């Protein structure tokens, strides 16, 4: 067995997993916020389609969604797709659904008095949302977001099913090549390290927002 080739191979997979994680966060958080706002719309033409989207995203396996977006565009629409883009897209719209529900819970937990106070002072509804509501929502939803984000780190392993050379797939290849299961243990350790960083970042953010109570 040769560690000088197997370890870089594992680290390559780690970088791919981090890339997928980071891109999913970048796309799914703003999208989730937008979806939460639309979900709270009073118009059934807006909130009903959004609820259908939430049901599908949360009600079917992410693995199945990955296969769907890998095969549907080329086979049905004749549009060629790149595997990694499919992974980023599927993860983003899937996680946006979960983040959206977290945002919605947070938005609904802010007392209506805050909005009324802002309205009476002349703030527009957009100003009220970004200056008054959202900062308070973020403080409240950080623990749930930490949960979801740690799940995302582990879920990147699912991208292996559509052939993304991420950490889990590379570990599996190493196990097969050398007939040694220690590569699974190494992968587990790397996931654990990644999630320690995520957990630490969220707890730092929570501490930072502890300057006020409501």
């Amino acid at each position, binding site marked *: 067995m040769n560690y000088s080739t197997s370890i870089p191979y594992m680290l390559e997979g780690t970088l791919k997993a981090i890339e997928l994680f980071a891109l999913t966060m970048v796309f799914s958080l703003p999208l989730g916020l937008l979806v939460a706002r639309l979900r709270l719309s009073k118009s059934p033409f807006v909130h009903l389609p959004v609820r259908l989207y939430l049901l599908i995203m949360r009600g079917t396996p992410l693995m199945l969604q990955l296969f769907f977006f890998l095969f549907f565009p080329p086979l049905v629409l004749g549009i060629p797709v790149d595997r990694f883009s499919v992974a980023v897209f599927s993860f983003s719209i899937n996680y946006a659904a979960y983040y959206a529900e977290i945002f919605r819970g947070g938005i609904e937990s802010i007392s209506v008095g805050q909005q009324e106070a802002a309205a009476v002072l*002349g703030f527009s509804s957009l100003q009220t949302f970004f200056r008054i509501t959202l900062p308070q929502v973020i403080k409240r939803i950080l623990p749930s977001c930490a949960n979801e984000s740690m799940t995302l780190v582990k879920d990147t392993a699912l991208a292996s099913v559509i052939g993304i050379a991420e950490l889990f797939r590379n570990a599996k290849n190493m196990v097969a090549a050398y007939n040694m299961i220690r590569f699974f243990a190494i992968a587990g350790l790397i996931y654990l390290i990644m999630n320690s960083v995520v957990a630490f970042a969220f707890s730092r953010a929570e501490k930072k927002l502890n300057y*006020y109570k409501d």
Partner: protein
Amino acid sequence: MASEEILRVSHVSKSFGDLEVLKDMSLRVERGEVVSIIGPSGSGKSTLLRVINQLEHADRGEIVVCGNELCHTDANDRAVYAKKETLKTIRLSIGLVFQSFHLFPHYSILRNITEAPMHVLKINREEAESTAIELLRKLGLSDKAKAYPFQLSGGQQQRAAIARTLAMNPQMIFFDEPTSALDPELTGEVLRVIRSLADEHMTMVVVTHEMAFAGELSDRIIFMDQGAIIEEGSPEEVFSSERERTKQFLQHFTK
């Protein structure tokens, strides 16, 4: 001094489902006047203030604030509201102080006061902050500028909320039971602030259960019950009313 009408409410009605909260309500307030509204819970006092502040929609009736029409009744007997710019002008001419303050918990007291002047009135930071500091000094909160709402007592929070309202320089201020959420020993400091505003001839409409305060401060007292005005007049007139319903209500406040 010639009287100048600052608020006119004519024949306003408002229902929540089957419950008629305001019944054909009419009211006039002149510049510099202090009007107190008293009455039992559920009599529609707060709803009246909330309708004028656009936090609730009137079902019908006419409301005119500083010469700008907020709404009127159309041919179908429905309230029709003014266009957006007018609604905003009207909104900015009235300040509302809430029973439970509703300060923004994530902003310092100073920023609670400067946020709306800076982002709604587009006043620059230096000017907004110097106005805020001056208001805090006047309301005895100079040392609280950097504090956060949770660090203040209820009375201090309410005074900060009044400063936030004053910073927008409204034509008139509504107080919706400003001392009802406070411990009895903290009501005095808030009432003193309201009294000092009355001395400066600020136009105010105060919904309150503080009868002695209302009597001493008000040019006029309105007694409301079940969505309608039962009695209206000078404090002496209302407090010595022979009307059965008024007497019955006031009885609760005499020891």
